[in-house]
């Protein structure tokens, strides 16, 4: 399944800061009346613990393949003009930009829906892991429980 209209659908990993200005401009289209974007920023807390920063690690080849599949699914499901996602890997400080998603479309329903679909699926499926550092204890890898899954091993 892929887009049937001519439409940009692109996923990338970034090893340095994401510059959103040109990414947004790459989605401008004369026929597009709506643009929705999402950004994930590093919070200063997680699960009640004070976060000092983090590092993202990816299984790069599979992450790019799975991310590309996700943006193409979004382009096939929703009538968008373009959809683009960039995920950062490496060290990030509190406030840093971890992930950006942008979608342009003739109408706002499709722009919002595509943007939401991409970030939700990226968080579920793309092999990227967060190594979180705290001000109150040792750093750890995050491996979220799925609903109903057995507890994480110690």
């Amino acid at each position, binding site marked *: 399944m892929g887009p049937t209209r001519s439409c940009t659908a692109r996923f990338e990993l970034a090893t340095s800061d994401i510059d959103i200005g040109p990414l947004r401009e790459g989605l401008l289209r004369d026929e597009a009346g709506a643009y929705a974007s999402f950004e994930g920023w590093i919070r200063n807390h997680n699960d009640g613990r004070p976060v000092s920063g983090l590092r*993202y690690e990816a299984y790069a080849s599979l992450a790019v393949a799975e991310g590309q599949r996700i943006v193409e699914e979004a382009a096939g499901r929703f009538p968008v003009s373009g959809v683009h996602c960039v995920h950062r890997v490496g060290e990030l400080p509190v406030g840093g930009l971890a992930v950006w998603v942008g979608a342009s479309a003739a109408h706002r329903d499709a722009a919002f829906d595509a943007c939401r679909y991409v970030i939700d699926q990226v968080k579920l499926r793309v092999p*990227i892991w*967060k190594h979180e550092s705290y001000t109150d204890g040792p750093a*750890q890898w995050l491996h979220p429980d799925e609903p109903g899954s*057995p507890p994480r091993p110690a």
Partner: protein
Amino acid sequence: MAKVALLYFASLREATGCEREEVETGAADLAGLYAEAASRHGLQWPRERLRVAMDGAFAAWSEPPREGSEVAFIPPVSGG
């Protein structure tokens, strides 16, 4: 016997102490290949919590390991 490279990420890499190892395996499928690795390294993750990829694409645990392939055991992801 098949010769495969195993990749470990995140807490699995911490647990094994390596990001890549080459092994000879007689396992009939990827599930058996994981059982060998879990036993060798004392991995605590039940297979049900992991996914598996072969040569850069998600695979089924029932697939046999391909000679010369690269196999990754994928713990729950936390990107975004």
